[in-house]
C-alpha cells in the first residue's frame, strides 16, 4: 500500500534556485517576509520593486552575506541555507553588487584573473586562468581597457568588471544587482543581448534592475517585491496587467507605473 503524496510529483530535474519562506528582520524592521522564488537555469528572471523593497537584502541572503531568520534555499535541489558565502560561490552562485565591490587597487584584468585563479585552485579543473581572463575581457567588452586601474574607471565600466569577475567563477546562477546603471541607452541594449546570450548558454540569471525596458525585454519571468513581500509573480505581460502591481507603483510614483504599463 502506498500513501499518495499530497504534493504533485515533480517531473524533470529540480530548478536551479528554489527559495522558500525567507524572513529577515533588522531590529524592528521586517526586511523580507516569507519570500518564495524559483529561478530556472537557462533563463533570465527579473526581480523588481521600489527602493527599499528588500531586493539587495534578498541577494545577500541567497549568496550568504546575510543570515535569514527563517527559510530554505535550495541550489539544484541541495539545501545551502547553512553554507558560508564563499562555499556558496564554489557551488555556483556568483553576483555583482549594487554598491560597487570591485578590487579597486587592481587592473580590470587582475580583477577577473584573481577570480579565475581562485576557481581553478579549488576546482582543480577548468581552463588556464590567464586565457580565461582574456576570453572574459573580450566577452564583456573590456579588452581595450584591461590594464586600467578599476578605481579610476567610470561606474558603468566598473560594473562590467564586476560582471566579468562573476563570470570567471564559472557560475551556474548569476545574481545581477542593477548592472545597467551607469550605462547609456545603446549600451544597455548591448548589455541585454549579452545577458540573453549567457542565459542561452545555460546560465540562470536573476536580475534586479530599475531599467524597466531592459527588464521587460530580457526576462522570461518577473517577481515584484514590495515592503519585503512578493507582491506578484508571472510573465512580463502578466505583471504589466496585475492590478496590485499597478497600485503599488502608483503609490510610489506615477511615472514608474506608466513605465510598467507603457512598455510592450
Amino acid at each position, binding site marked *: 500500500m502506498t500513501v499518495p503524496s499530497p504534493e504533485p510529483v515533480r517531473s524533470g530535474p529540480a530548478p536551479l534556485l528554489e527559495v522558500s519562506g525567507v524572513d529577515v528582520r533588522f531590529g524592528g524592521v521586517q526586511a523580507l517576509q516569507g519570500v518564495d522564488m524559483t529561478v530556472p537555469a537557462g533563463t533570465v528572471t527579473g526581480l523588481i520593486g521600489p527602493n527599499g523593497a528588500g531586493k539587495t537584502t534578498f541577494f545577500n541572503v541567497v549568496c550568504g552575506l546575510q543570515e535569514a531568520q527563517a527559510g530554505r534555499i535550495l541550489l539544484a535541489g541541495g539545501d545551502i541555507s547553512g553554507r558560508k558565502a564563499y562555499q556558496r560561490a564554489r557551488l555556483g552562485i556568483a553576483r555583482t553588487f549594487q554598491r*560597487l565591490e570591485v578590487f579597486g587597487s587592481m587592473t580590470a584584468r587582475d580583477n577577473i584573473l584573481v577570480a579565475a*585563479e581562485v576557481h581553478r585552485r579549488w576546482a582543480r579543473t577548468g581552463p588556464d586562468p590567464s586565457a580565461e581572463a582574456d576570453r572574459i575581457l573580450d566577452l*564583456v567588452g573590456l579588452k581595450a581597457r584591461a590594464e586600467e586601474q578599476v578605481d579610476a574607471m*567610470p561606474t558603468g565600466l566598473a560594473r562590467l568588471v564586476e560582471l566579468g569577475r562573476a563570470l570567471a567563477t564559472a557560475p551556474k546562477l548569476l545574481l545581477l544587482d542593477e548592472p545597467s546603471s551607469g550605462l547609456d541607452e545603446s549600451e544597455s541594449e548591448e548589455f541585454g543581448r549579452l545577458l540573453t546570450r549567457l542565459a542561452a548558454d545555460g546560465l540562470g540569471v536573476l536580475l534586479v534592475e530599475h531599467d524597466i525596458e531592459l527588464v521587460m525585454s530580457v526576462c522570461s519571468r518577473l517577481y515584484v517585491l514590495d515592503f519585503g513581500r512578493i507582491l506578484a509573480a508571472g510573465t512580463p505581460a502578466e505583471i504589466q496587467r496585475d492590478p496590485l502591481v499597478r497600485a503599488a507603483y502608483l503609490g510610489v510614483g506615477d511615472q514608474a507605473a506608466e513605465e510598467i504599463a507603457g512598455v510592450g
Partner: protein
Amino acid sequence: MNLILSYAVVGLVLGCLYALTASGLVVTYTTSGIFNFAHGAIGMFMAFTYWQLAVGWHLPVPLALALVVLVLAPLSGALIERLIVRPLYGASLGITLVVTLGLLLLLLGLADAIWPPVTTRQLPSIFPGQFRVFSVVVTFYELMVLVVSVAVAVGLRFLFTHTRVGITMRAVVDDRDLTARAGASPVRTAQLSWALGASLAALAGILIAPLQYLDQFNLTLLVVTGYAAAVVGRLRSLPLTVAGALLLGLVQSFATGYLPTNLLSDIGPAIPMGLLFIALLVRRQERLTQARLTGQRSRRVLDLKPSLFLAGGFIALSVVMSEVLSPGNLLTYGQGIVLGVVMLSLVLLTGYGGQVSLCQMTLAGLGAFCMGKIAGGNSLLGLVAAVVLPAAVGGLLALVVLRLRGIYLALATLAFAYSMDYLFFNHFLGFGGILAVGRVAAQSQKGFLVEASVLFAVLGVGVLALRRGSFGRRLAALNDSEAACASIGMNITAVKVTVFVVAAGIAGLGGALYGGWQGQVGPDDFQMLTSLILLLLVTLGGIDTVGGAFAAAIFYAFSPVIQRHIPISNFQLLAVGAGAIFLGRNPGGFAGQLSLVADRLRLRAGSAGVPITAPAASSVDGAGSRSGAPSGEAVRLAGSH
C-alpha cells in the same frame, strides 16, 4: 571583611579613573569615527602642564586645575581636530591609526623634552587627609575622585539626552550625512567632541597621577586600560564603558590584594589586556569589509629582473659599507638592515594584505628567544626554530583574531604585544633580563653584515615575487573588499592565516638576526612601543613597497647618528611622530613620493609610462561609496557584437 571593603574602595576609585579616560575615548570615537590612540598622551601632556602651572609656576591649585581642564585641554582638543583630524574624515583605518599613533609619539617626545625625566615630579595633593566609613579608611582624594566621576557621568548623560549639542552628537553618530542635511554641522560637532574628549583625558591624567609619580610612559599607556573599557562598551555605549571600567578597577584591586606578589608582577599589568581580549572575542561576528574608494593610484609592483638587479645592488652596497664604515656606524647600519627584515613582514601583512598588526616586534622577540635558547645560541636549528615558532604563534593569533577587523584587529594585536611584554619577555629573556644570542655562518662583524644583507635582499625579492603572483593578487583583493572575495569563492580565513604565518616567520627571522647582530637582547628590545614605531616608520617609508621598508630601516638605524648632531632631544620620536601626522595628506609615504617623481620624469622623457591621470572619482565621501559619478565616457560592449 574590612580588607575586602578596603580593596573594593581602591578598586572603585581606580575604576572611576578608567571610566573617565574611556568615556573621553568613546565620545571622540563615536562622533568623529576616528579612534584616538593619542587619548592617553593628551591626558599625560595635560597632567604635566598642570604640574608646570601648579608646582613649577606656583599658581593656586584650583586656578591651575580650572585652567588646564576647562581651557587648555579643550582648546588643544579643538586644535588637534582642526589641524590633524579633520583631513582624515573618510580616510582608511590604516591612515587614521598611523596619524593618531604619530600624535602619541609626538606628545611623548615633546613631554620628555620639556620635562626631562631626571627629576621625579609629584602633583600637589588636592585634598589631604582621610576619614573612616565602617572602619574602612577612605582618603579625601579617593572621595573626590568618586564625586568627580559620578558628576562627569551624570553630566555626560544629561548632555546626551537633554541638550541640543548632545543630541546633535548622537545624531552624527547615527547618520553623519542626514545630520548635515538637517542643518547641523557634523564637523563642528566632531570638533566639540574632541574638545570634550581632551578635557576628560586631562581630568583622568591629573586625577590618576597622585597614585603614581608623573611619568610620561605610564600615563600615556594608562589609556590602554581605557581601550579595554571602551571596547566593553563597544566603543559606543557610555554606560557599558563605565561598567567595564569599574569591573576592571575592581579586578585589578583584588588581584593586588590576593595574588601572590611574584605572580602579581606578571599578571597584574596584563589584566586589562585580558579583559580587552575577551571583550573583543565575544563581539558578534562583524560584516565582511566592503570596498572603499581610496582615490589612490596603486603602484606597479617591481618585475623580477629589476628587483633582482636592485637586490644585487643592495648587497654590493653593504659589502662596500662593511669596508668603509667605522665600527660604530657599521653597528647602526647593520641594525637598520636586521630591523628592515622585521619591517618587510609589515609590508607583506599590512601593506599588501591590509591586516594591521601592532605586535610584529613581539614576534621578532620570539625569534630572538628561539635563536638564543636553542642548541648553544648559534645553531642552524635555532635559526629554523626562530622562523617556525613565531610563524606558529602568528598563525594561532590569526585564528583567534580572525573575526576582528579594522580598529578591533589593531587593538587585539596591541593587547597581545602588551601582554607578552609582561607575561613573557620580562621573564624568559635569560638571566637578569639579558639573553645572549649568537650567529649562524659568518661570525665576524663584516661577514654577518653581508649575511644579513643577503637575507634581506632575498626576502625582499621573495616578498615582491609573492605580491606579483596569484597569492599576491588574492592578498590585494582581500585588502580591497572582503565581501567581493567571498563572492568569488575565496576562503578568506585561509588567505589571512597564511599571510599572518608568513609575516610572523619573517619577523621571527628578523628578530634572530637582530639578536645575533647585537649579541644579546633584553625585554626592552621588543616592547609594544617599538612595534608601533616600526609600523609608523614603514608607513612613512611607503608600506606597500619593499623600498619603503628599506628607507625606514636606514632612517631607524641612522637616527641616533643624526641625534648626536642636533640639539633637539628625542629626535627619533619627534620626527616619526611629526612625519606620521603629515602622512594624513600624503598617504603613499616616501617611496610613494619617489615613484610619483619617477613617473613624472618618465613622462617628461617621453616614454609611454603609466598614465598619471587622476581617478575619475577621486573624492572620498563619508560613506565610502563611489560618489555616484555617472559614466562620462562612452562604454562599448565591443565583444557582444
